[in-house]
């Protein structure tokens, strides 16, 4: 009895530990995407906040005398109140007395005179820091002081009763903020960079490449799996060998080929070379070889053509395998970067794909991470949507093809 309970406890402890590790790991994986998503909704003033904040905030505003003005929490004689800032006010310097640094004075900058003149202003050392020495008038006598901080004296009003005004230093006032989604960021990023055109280009290229690859590899896979022709097996070995050859070796000759054919900067260059695949043919062959032969033999007896057998018997059976290959190809085509970078190279923005647009956007909006992240969100959202819809094929496909 006691043993059983300790077993139960142990099981629960294991569960909790496992979930803790998995959740932490999951957060680690998902955090950059949360950052991307929330940053894409931030106002431009909100992105360079230090320390950083994940959620998009913006300053709340109120309407005073027909003008939209920001709201602040201000310390007033009646306590902390929410007030509207109607006037930024004059620049204000807070000086501290050299003799007694705890005594501070608020002055406009022109009311302070440099000791020794502007060109050879004297300096003092306070707490290891060198400070400029100034003189101010206080109670009819001049006082040596140094600058402590700067601020602005703002004029605040009660948003409900604009007659009631308060003066307070802006450094002491904290803006009233709430979570606010700047949806117009997406509009702006579309104006800045033709992300929408890149998005549809990427879709078109991906669709064509996926269809092309599936067709050629189903045909080739069937030939390798079922049809005997001279040199089949050595050709298959060559195909297998080419899977090992990295794309790196082909970059330069393929580019030159595109120059010769006249496809530089053309969508055709993004599609045509990619609809033939040794890897996909290999996957299809592996699948077709596992289909029992009796199925097609009966059809052959009836005089059905090979193409018909393939279309009516093999393709319906190969549904999951084709879906797996399609998802693989989709990911590859959607995210390919090196080849588009090389072949769409003269700034033909109309034919750019998403990866290229993101690269350009990153340079153009270097000072607006919110816009860059809006572009990235657009780029990531479509594959993510397809992943949600066809998750089975992604994960299980990887699982089955990974372990050959």
């Amino acid at each position, binding site marked *: 009895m006691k043993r059983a309970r300790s077993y139960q406890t142990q099981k629960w402890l294991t569960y909790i530990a496992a*979930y803790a*590790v998995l959740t932490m*790991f999951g957060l*680690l*994986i*998902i955090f*950059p*995407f949360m*950052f991307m998503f929330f940053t894409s909704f931030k106002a431009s003033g909100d*992105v*360079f*906040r230090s320390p*950083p904040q994940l959620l998009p905030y913006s300053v709340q505003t109120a309407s005073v005398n027909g003008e939209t003005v920001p709201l602040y929490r201000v310390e007033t004689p009646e306590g902390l109140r929410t007030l509207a800032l109607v006037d930024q006010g004059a620049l204000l310097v807070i000086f501290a007395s050299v003799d007694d640094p705890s005594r501070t004075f608020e002055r406009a900058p022109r009311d302070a005179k440099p000791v020794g003149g502007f060109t050879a202003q004297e300096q003092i050392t306070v707490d290891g820091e060198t400070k400029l020495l100034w003189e101010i008038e206080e109670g009819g006598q001049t006082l040596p002081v140094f600058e402590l901080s700067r601020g602005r004296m703002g004029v605040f009003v009660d948003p409900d009763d604009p007659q009631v005004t308060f003066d307070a230093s802006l450094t002491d006032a904290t803006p009233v903020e709430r979570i606010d989604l700047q949806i117009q960021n997406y509009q702006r990023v579309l104006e800045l960079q033709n992300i*929408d*055109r890149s998005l*549809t280009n990427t*879709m*078109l290229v991906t669709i064509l490449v996926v269809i092309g690859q599936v067709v*050629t590899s189903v045909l*080739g896979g*069937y*030939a*390798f799996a079922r*049809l*005997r*022709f*001279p040199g*089949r097996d050595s050709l298959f070995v060559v*195909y297998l060998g*080419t899977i090992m050859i*990295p794309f*790196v070796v*082909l*970059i*330069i*000759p393929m580019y030159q*080929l595109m120059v010769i054919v006249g496809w530089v900067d053309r*969508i*055709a260059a993004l599609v045509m*070379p990619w609809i*033939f695949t*040794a890897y996909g043919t290999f996957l299809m062959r592996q699948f077709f070889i596992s289909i029992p032969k009796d199925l097609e033999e009966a059809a052959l007896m009836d005089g059905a053509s090979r193409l018909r057998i393939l279309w009516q018997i093999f393709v319906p059976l190969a549904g999951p395998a084709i879906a797996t290959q399609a998802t693989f190809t989709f990911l590859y085509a959607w*995210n390919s970067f*090196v080849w588009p970078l*090389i072949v769409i190279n003269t700034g033909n923005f*109309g034919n750019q794909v998403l*990866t290229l647009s*993101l*690269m350009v956007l*990153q340079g153009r909006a270097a000072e607006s991470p919110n816009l860059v992240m809006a572009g*990235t969100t657009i*780029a990531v959202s479509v*594959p*993510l949507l397809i*992943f949600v*819809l066809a998750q089975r094929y992604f994960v299980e496909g*990887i*699982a089955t093809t*990974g*372990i050959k």
Partner: protein
Amino acid sequence: MREGSQGEPGSPCDPIKGKPMATTTARKPATTAGAALVIRLGAAWHALLAFGLVAAAWALLQARWVQRDGLRLYVAGLILLGAVASVIALVLLLRRDGRGRAISLGLNYIFGVGSLLSLLGVLGLYISLDEVAASFNRWVWLLLGVLVGFLIGSVGDRFTHAPTTQAAFHRAGGWVMGASAIILLLAMGLIQGVIGLLSGLGNPLALVLLSATVLFGLFFWLMLRPQIAVAFGAGERDAEAVSGFLFIAPNLLGFMLFFAGPLLFSLYLSFTNSDSFTAEFVGLRNYIEIFSLQFAQVPPGQRSGAVLSSGYIELVRLGDFVVGAKDRIFWIALWNTIVYCFWVTMLSVVPALLVATILNSKIPGMQFFRAIYFIPSIAGVVGVAVIWKWLYNSNIGFLNYGINQVLGLFNRLPFVEIAPVQIAWLASQQTALASIIIMAAWQLLGFNTILFLAGLQGIPGEIYEAATIDGASNLQRFRYMTLPLLAPTTFFVVTTTLITTLQVFSEPFVMTPPPGGGPNNSTMTAVLYLYQRGFNRFEQGYAAAVAWVVFLFIFAVTLVQFRLQRRYGDM
């Protein structure tokens, strides 16, 4: 060209010997008068073709306006090869040899497809993809119909207990998807496009290509006729071989055109000083430049420049010794690539194995976590790199913030005082490569986890039960059972990670802004270097040589992996 009925056997032919394809060699082939005429016509066609190909090769060799010497020789050689094959086909056809028919079929097919593709090119089909992309942009919202159809179809999956309802949903979904696709194509101007292409046929070149296509197609079709096949004594197996080649042909032609051809061409380019327009053969000069290293001893107090020959730049200095290289950046890039590859593999494989082990303990919600871990692989390198670039920002990035938060926790302990850090990450020579390594490992982690998980799920549970009864601890089971049984998966994961990481390009290209390479070449990788030489400086011959060196390096690493696998595979 309709054949009459199975007429009387024609003049007896020589018995066919040594034909690899024929199975019915015992029977003498029967030839009708029509078949004999077709064969003679085919032979005449091959004579014409051979003549035409020789003329074309000669014209190409004379054409001084084609700048690329190597390519010209290459293509002319291929054309001459075709001419030779055509002559062989001619002779064999006349001798009623089955191989003649095979060669004839092959030649007609290849040239037929070639002229069809050129015809499409002349008509502007490939270029018109740009306009297709533009109108796709306008009408893309019609794709929503396809999505709706897909959703209708997947609703059907819920009715597994009612097959008729399920089938109805699937059919309805299929109809909606098909109809939306057709509407999309019509809206994009499919009909106008086809008319536009056909109107291009007035072009004389198009007419020539069209007639060539028709002629090649005609002779291909003629040779495939049953009567001709019978005349050559071809049987079932030959028919199967022909369909085999026909099925593999689209793939094989693409493979030749976009893989095997460029591969050979790349090897040739690496021996030239090609700048993508002109190329001169320079022999091994590129490779010599890459591999030029010099080892020298530096007397104390002297600068390394004094002992190295001119053209050599100091690469690394070890005490009294100095290593100089002609192409210093290549070696730096290679070293960075190796460092990157090693660390990314370590950081993405080991934790992935641990997480996969936890995921495999059959806890509820496993699918959810598995899906989450897969997301970085979907997002693609460029998107992820753009995101991480901001996470790495030294002032407002979350990475420094997070580190300082953790340091702050430590600072609460007595006697601990750590100043907050502000790491420059990508902007500093010391940390730039490490930053990219961390990001790449993060991205590969989830993917590798899923691979390991699949491997773990393939291990039958009974094995563990036996071990548990024998009193093996968790750790012992992991070490002595899971790891050996998982060896094939581990091998696969490590190999793919190595091959991917050795080709790293996008990460440093995006994160350390173009032309890339990072502070003081600290994130210069081999492929990035290749890109810079090939496409910024247009030294494409040299870049091709770099590519081959990188390729051979990757190949060697893979080979070592295979050896290790064979040796320790069944530990």
